[in-house]
């Protein structure tokens, strides 16, 4: 009986745990509740994954109302993969967050912090699971509002302006999504995504539907931080608490990418989105521009969190580049990179969190000689950096390999050049950190005070970094699921 109710449990477990966190006063108890809810969500996600691999697409009707009148949750292989990533990341980062948050957030506000974290998790999980377009908007706003609050918890006062800027841009993006959904509703009379996919072909040629596509793509791109709508991301990631940066970097943009996939391939369909409208070439150009320009900007950053934030925008460019090819191979590469990037960036930001915990700062200068004083932390950063560059045996290499193969299969030679140049630029900015950590002498004044990060912070970091290496070597699971997901997306569309 529980198994058939899993989709509802997936969303309601963090939703119910959030007010429970609000009721307790101690930060420790709130962390316990948050960890329990995240672990339970992860368990539900794993169960859902196994069910979907057995039975195919699952459908769940809320309130017993049949789709398309009621709100339906459709779980297919694409959803459940992203769900797996989101719930796994939140559980691992929450293990990290115990000590990290205790250092970075006031004791009186820690229970509020975890309440908002759980609400953000609810929103993200809801976005991934839902099969109703307006329900997607509601959960999008829940997760966005919670992430504005999470970012504002940062100690530096610039966290407030970063959160404000993200709020303004994020609300404009979400309102564009709302307009797009409204225009679609106007033309078809339904909000259920599967039903929209059935009814849209009849009205595809109208200006309203084209406008709806444009509004939706722009709105989602604001959330996705696709170049040039990425201006909120560097500030937001740089000034948020370390655990929040790791959580958001590994989940929020991935979920936005999933929304883009869902709307372009399931609702609108490949023929409309990529052939009738020139979305393929637009997304390809923007993706390539993202990779090249933000990698260059990342090289000149002094604050390592900002550098990794710009690098995140570049990685999103890789994903969008794969999407723009509108082929099974391209989509496989994108979805694979979604998974790998979550592991890479999650691990890298956790390693930075370890550094912030011990060194108090993540400026490049503060890292002098850190390779010897904090060997495990810098080791994690080094492996994560290699994965970013795309060295063989790491997960990052795998996604770039598949991306290049997909591009060459379509005859898109410039993509190969862009990927190579992007990787070379990544070498430059990773080398800057590695050089400072391993090849410089530490300042004698604070050399003695710095020790290795505590085990409670190192274990989650190395778990994610180790997963990078594991999934770079044992590729069958991640590539297999990504391939199935891509096939489903292309098969579902007209």
């Amino acid at each position, binding site marked *: *009986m529980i198994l058939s*109710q899993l989709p*509802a449990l997936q969303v*309601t477990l963090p*939703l*119910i745990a*959030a*007010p*429970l966190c*609000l*009721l307790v006063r101690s930060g420790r108890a709130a962390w316990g509740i948050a960890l329990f809810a995240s672990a339970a969500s992860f368990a539900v996600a794993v169960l859902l994954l196994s069910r979907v691999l057995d039975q195919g697409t699952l459908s*769940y*009707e*809320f*309130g*017993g109302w049949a789709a398309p009148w009621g709100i339906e949750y459709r779980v297919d292989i694409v959803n459940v993969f992203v769900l797996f990533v989101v719930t796994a990341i939140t559980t691992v980062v929450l293990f990290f967050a115990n000590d990290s948050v205790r250092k970075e957030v006031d004791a009186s506000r820690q229970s509020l912090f975890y309440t908002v974290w759980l609400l953000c998790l609810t929103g993200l999980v809801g976005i991934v699971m839902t099969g109703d377009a307006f329900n997607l908007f509601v959960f999008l706003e829940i997760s966005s509002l919670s992430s504005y609050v999470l970012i504002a918890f940062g100690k530096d006062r610039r966290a407030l302006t970063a959160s404000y800027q993200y709020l303004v841009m994020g609300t404009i993006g979400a309102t564009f999504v709302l307009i797009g959904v409204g225009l679609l509703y106007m033309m078809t009379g339904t909000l259920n995504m599967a039903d929209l996919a059935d009814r849209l072909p009849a009205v595809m040629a109208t200006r309203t539907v084209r406008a709806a596509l444009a509004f939706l793509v722009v709105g989602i791109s604001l959330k996705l931080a696709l170049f040039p709508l990425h201006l909120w991301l560097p500030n937001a990631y740089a000034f948020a608490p370390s655990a929040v940066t790791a959580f958001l970097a590994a989940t929020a943009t991935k979920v936005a990418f999933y929304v883009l996939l869902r709307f372009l391939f399931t609702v609108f369909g490949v023929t409309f989105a990529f052939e009738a409208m020139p979305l393929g070439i637009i997304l390809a150009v923007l993706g390539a521009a993202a990779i090249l320009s933000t990698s260059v900007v990342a090289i000149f950053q002094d604050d390592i969190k900002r550098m990794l934030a710009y690098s995140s925008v570049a990685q999103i460019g890789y994903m969008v580049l794969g999407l723009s090819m509108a082929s099974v191979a391209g989509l496989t590469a994108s979805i694979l990179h979604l998974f790998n990037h979550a592991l890479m960036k999650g691990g890298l930001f956790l390693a930075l969190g370890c550094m912030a915990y011990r060194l108090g700062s993540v400026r490049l200068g503060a890292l002098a000689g850190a390779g010897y004083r904090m060997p495990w932390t810098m080791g994690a950063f080094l492996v994560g950096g290699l994965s970013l560059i795309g060295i063989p045996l790491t997960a990052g290499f795998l996604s770039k390999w598949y991306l290049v193969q997909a591009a060459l299969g379509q005859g898109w030679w410039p993509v190969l050049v862009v990927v190579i140049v992007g990787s070379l630029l990544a070498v430059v900015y990773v080398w800057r950190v590695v050089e400072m950590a391993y090849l410089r002498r530490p300042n004698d004044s604070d050399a003695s005070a710095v020790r290795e990060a505590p085990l409670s912070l190192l274990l989650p970091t190395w778990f994610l970094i180790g997963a990078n290496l594991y999934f770079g070597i044992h590729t069958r699971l991640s590539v297999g699921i990504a391939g199935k997901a891509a096939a489903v997306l292309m098969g579902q569309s007209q």
Partner: protein
Amino acid sequence: MRDNPVLRVVTKIIVPVIFLFALYVQFHGDYGPGGGFQAGVIFAAGLILYGLIFGTESIRCLISTRFLRALIAAGLLLFASVGFLPLLMGRNYLDYDALGQNPLSGQHLGIFLVELGVGITVAAVMVTIFVAFAGRRDS
């Protein structure tokens, strides 16, 4: 504004009427415009009016901040729990049909409880926002 006799007297007369109107809007959401969110805001508006005239400390005397926080959590928990009850009877989440003897009474009861939860949370949130903003002193 406490010193102005007109404001003081009118507020004391009007605030109970506002509360009564909020309860009316809450429970007549089935038959007219209304429902949880609207009623919660009207209820909070009554409390905020009181706070504007007599000072924010007067609201704190009436309802402590801790109790407001508990109310926020309680409203949301009420909503989510009402959704869980049908799960125990083998139906889907938020399937109100299972809550009563027949689908009609079940839907009635379900919507009633759910809107009550929403109203409680919204009223508590609005008052908390007001107290949080107004309670800050310029340093």
